[in-house]
């Protein structure tokens, strides 16, 4: 946006944008949620923008945990005790499992920061999400939905984006078992579990994620990162044996092919 010499002109522009209901949630980005992974943060000019909507799609229904854990860890990486508000529907525990606090504690997160809100149906989930994002002071709001979410059309999505921007709340949408569709999200991701680095005796190692940037507002989409969570440093890092994993990239790519390519370009 060009620099406005006159503050009243900028004010008028803002008013005009409000009247015409401009879809673009502009305004300055207050901060970034950094991951700790150097390449990832550099590509996103510092990390996920706060006060914006970010969508995380699970590459497969079985990758729901990876998507949820990635979003939660990004939010819980922020220092302090600001609560993480997690909204889900009543059937989410049956489909994806209960959120398990001892597991979060073992990842280095603080489960006491978690506030779980369970809405009985997707319509109420949207209403609660609208209330939760308007409440400043949370580290982030995670909204977990399963399958197609009919109540979330473009208007509802824009309302969420504007609410998040006005309150400065970061909204992380977990879209599980859903196909990507056009939305006003700042970034859209596809998250899958990645094979971990083996420990001695062939034991599974630290959590590893495979991220693909499907869309980015005002920037180039595309880009894949293999990330590993290091709970001692409380940061993501590169998957140390990425090269050694080349054999497993093939099945991952086969799963990617199942995603509609048109949706990725939306």
């Amino acid at each position: 946006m060009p620099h406005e010499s006159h503050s009243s002109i900028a004010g008028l522009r803002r008013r005009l944008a409000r009247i015409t209901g401009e879809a673009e949630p502009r305004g300055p980005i207050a901060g970034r949620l950094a991951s700790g992974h150097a390449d990832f943060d550099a590509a996103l000019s510092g990390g996920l923008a706060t006060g914006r909507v970010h969508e995380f799609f699970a590459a497969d229904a079985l990758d729901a945990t990876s998507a949820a854990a990635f979003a939660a860890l990004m939010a819980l990486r922020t220092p302090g005790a600001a609560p993480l508000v997690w909204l889900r529907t009543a059937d989410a525990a049956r489909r994806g499992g209960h959120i398990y606090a001892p597991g979060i504690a073992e990842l280095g997160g603080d489960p006491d920061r978690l506030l779980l809100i369970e809405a009985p149906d997707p319509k109420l989930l949207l209403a609660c999400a609208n209330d939760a994002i308007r409440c400043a002071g949370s580290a982030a709001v995670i909204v977990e939905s399963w399958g197609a979410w009919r109540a979330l059309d473009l208007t509802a999505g824009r309302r969420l984006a504007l609410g998040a921007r006005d309150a400065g709340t970061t909204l992380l949408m977990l879209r599980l078992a859903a196909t990507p569709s056009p939305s006003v999200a700042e970034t859209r991701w596809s998250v899958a579990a990645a094979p971990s680095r083996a420990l001695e005796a062939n034991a599974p190692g630290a959590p590893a994620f495979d991220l693909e940037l499907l869309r980015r507002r005002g920037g180039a989409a595309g880009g894949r990162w293999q990330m590993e969570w290091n709970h001692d440093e409380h940061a993501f890092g590169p998957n140390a044996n990425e090269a050694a994993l080349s054999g497993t990239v093939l099945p991952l790519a086969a799963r990617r092919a199942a995603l509609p390519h048109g949706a990725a370009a939306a």
Partner: protein
Amino acid sequence: MPLADARARVPDLLVIAHDPVADTAWLDRLALGCNRYTPLVAIDAPDGLILDIAGAEHLFGGEAGLIDDLEMRLSRLGMSVRVALGPTADAARALARYQTRPAPDEDQAVRRLPVAALELEAEATTALVRAGLKTIGDLASRPMANIAARFGAEAASALRRILGDAPSPLAPRIAPPPVATERRFAEPLGSTAHATKVLTELLDEAAAQMRERGKGGRHFRATFFRSDGLARSIEIETGHPTRDTALVMRLFAERMDSLADPLDPGFGFDMIRLAVPRLEAMGATQLKLEGGAVRDAKMDELVDRMTTRLGRGRVRRLIAADTHIPEQAQLALPAIDAPPPLPWERPEPGEPPTRPFHLFDPPQPIEVIAEVPDGPPHQFRWRRQAHAVRRYEGPERIAAEWWRRRDNAGLTRDYYRVEDVQGRRLWLFRHGLYDEKPDPRWYIHGVFA
């Protein structure tokens, strides 16, 4: 008389089955409606109400005025009632149920009651009547020690209660709240909008009372009394003591919006009462310079609003529990009054997490190919999909909590942390050892990040 006989005599007899639960519920509603006269209303099951009107009758033009008002409202609801006033709860109750003859004053009326009013066992009552003691007055003229010796201590104590010599305490349906304000209207209010406005004023008054006492409310109850004698209560709770009228009103509005059957004024509300049954100490709040206190208050408000809208059990925090059984190691408790958090187990440096991010409760059964008896899983089928195990760690053996079980039994679980070829890390367990059970089943209990 059996029903068949009755039907034979009156062929078009209307038969309605006795529904004690509905009767109790109706009596409860009537009791709530009677709260307009006094906060102390006790239910005298199965068909009575006892009102402690001491100090309240002058508001209705004396005892006679109160009785007229009560009879008028209850008859409008189709109730036929017997009303009696007495110096004690037991005396009033006995007069309402057993009085047959008029008497010049209350004392005489009690003395003229039949001994059945003592409600002793049938044998004791018969014995009293056979002894020629037909009324309470007859019995009261005898020495109390003789009555106790002959007819039992129960007869003596019942007599003392009915005469007012011994206290007859009342167990009110709703304990009187520490703070309560109310407003009565000469003309019933027909609209809910007006009613909420009045409620706001009542909240301001209650807030002033609470401020004087240095307290804040945790639980608020608004009762709307309809002119036809019924009443409706709406309650809200807050996570922290509050005196903020706007906040409490928002919660009330939230509650009213989510009611299955909306607040119906009927022919109008003629009284609205606001009670604060639960108070907690609340000092003057000081705002932090960097705005910390304000933000906390916002989160608390979110918890209150969500709890009011969705219910206590749907807005929760996770609290650690001291057990090694995985599904019991966390408690999801209502955030509105969650206990202070307990410390969680911290991760071992350099080790991957040993507990999953998502836990299935109940665990989901899977078909596993594994070595018998103690081998790790090689392959398993879950949700109609085959998974080949590439890496594994285990077993982590978790015994049942036999000391909590009466039969000291329970199956041991062998947990394996496995990773399939696609990189998904899962938590599997075999429920039972081979020497505990002939063919132990395998389950998936969680998914790691």
